[in-house]
């Protein structure tokens, strides 16, 4: 799933990887792949994550991990960092999700009464990156679908999600709702349908397996 998601990154893109699963996408990119990673707290050109004994105390990503630079990195303030996001210079962001709706609405920051640490930079990434894809488990810990007709949790942004990567499938959000793109090896169509909380279009063409 992470490896499959990494193929979403095209040559020359500027990409922001959200906290959690998306961050792991880095590990699947070839060393010489032409891409620029952005982090909200003020860096373009993120390099590999470092262990504590090699870390620079002043160099973290937005998730608090100690990262490094690459040749050509640049630092800037938080206003400039979000200027990049809002003015359309992010080609792609990969985000986690609590819920996605079949119209592409995203909820990933608040569970009223349980979890409300604040929205951070998520709204702007979701609303303004040129392409927003979600990396998430197909269901929550209780087994309930995260892909729904409508979100029940407070929204991060409306109609922003283009594609969803889960351990079971790659699913696009289309004007007609969810559409299966690829399916994981060993997973059946019935299992994906069962775990998805809204109608799922199955194209007639051959479905690649990942």
């Amino acid at each position, binding site marked *: 799933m992470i490896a499959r998601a990494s193929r979403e990154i095209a040559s020359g893109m500027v990409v922001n990887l959200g906290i959690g699963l998306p961050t792991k996408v880095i590990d699947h990119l070839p060393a010489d792949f032409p891409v620029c990673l952005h*982090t*909200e*707290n*003020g*860096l373009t050109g993120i390099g590999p994550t470092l262990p*504590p004994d090699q*870390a*620079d*105390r*002043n*160099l*973290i*990503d*937005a998730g*608090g991990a*100690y990262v490094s630079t690459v040749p050509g990195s640049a*630092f*800037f*303030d*938080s*206003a400039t*960092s*979000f*200027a990049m*996001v*809002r003015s359309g210079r992010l080609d792609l962001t990969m985000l986690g999700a609590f819920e996605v709706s079949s119209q592409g609405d995203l909820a990933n920051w608040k569970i009223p009464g349980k979890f*409300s*640490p*604040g*929205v*951070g*930079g*998520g*709204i*702007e990434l979701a*609303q*303004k990156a040129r392409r927003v894809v979600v990396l998430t488990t197909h269901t929550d810990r209780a087994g309930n679908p995260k892909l729904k007709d409508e979100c029940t949790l*407070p*929204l*991060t*942004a*409306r109609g922003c999600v283009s594609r969803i990567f889960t351990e079971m499938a790659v699913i696009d959000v289309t004007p007609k709702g969810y559409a299966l793109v690829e399916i994981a090896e060993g997973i059946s169509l019935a299992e994906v349908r069962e775990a998805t909380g809204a109608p799922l279009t199955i194209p007639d063409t051959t479905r690649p397996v990942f």
Partner: protein
Amino acid sequence: MKLPDKRCDMAAAVARIKDGATVMVGGFGVPGTPMALIHALVDHGARDLTLIKNDANEPGMGLDHLLQSGQVTRLITTHLGLNSHAIDLMNSGRIKVEFNAQGMLAERIRAGGAGIGAVLSDIGIGTELAEGKQVVEVDGKPHLVETALRADFALIHADRADTFGNLAYVATARNFNPLMAMAATHVIVEAETVTPLGALDADAVHTSGVFVDHVTELGALSKEYAVVQR
């Protein structure tokens, strides 16, 4: 002509902060958080403070000292995910918390520093962060009025300062510091090194000393500035 000298004792600078003041605090996580100025403000003891900071650090670190000492009434922030203590204070109603989208917090502070009244933005439209905000149409599209934020004081961490208060930050310790350094009536800076006039390259200054009121040099850095061991 010679640029004025703004070096100042840290305790004396912080002693100007009165009960009820609004105080901006730089930093995103540990980098750029003015740990020593925060301790000086705890020692000074001003109460009923409104704080503006991206995050509340972690329990027992940085901004959390001011939450633990009970000096804070209100916190304007973006994310408290790493500070369960702050979330407890919020949930139990002991502090009021106003959450902003991170880039809008940055933009509102910059607006305060730029002397403009507000920015019009479509960020958060259709979400609960839009609730209660004035809506104005620009080119036929609805925008939210995001009002400028200014503070009575800003507490800033810089890597280097000169005696006039020109500042240079390092790596991701820059974050909100240059924005807050523009947006407060009194700007107090702790710098890891204070250099003579002329030691900072004029092209490499990140904050002109014109925005800065007081500069203090940090001695040996406390453990709070170090890499966090998790």
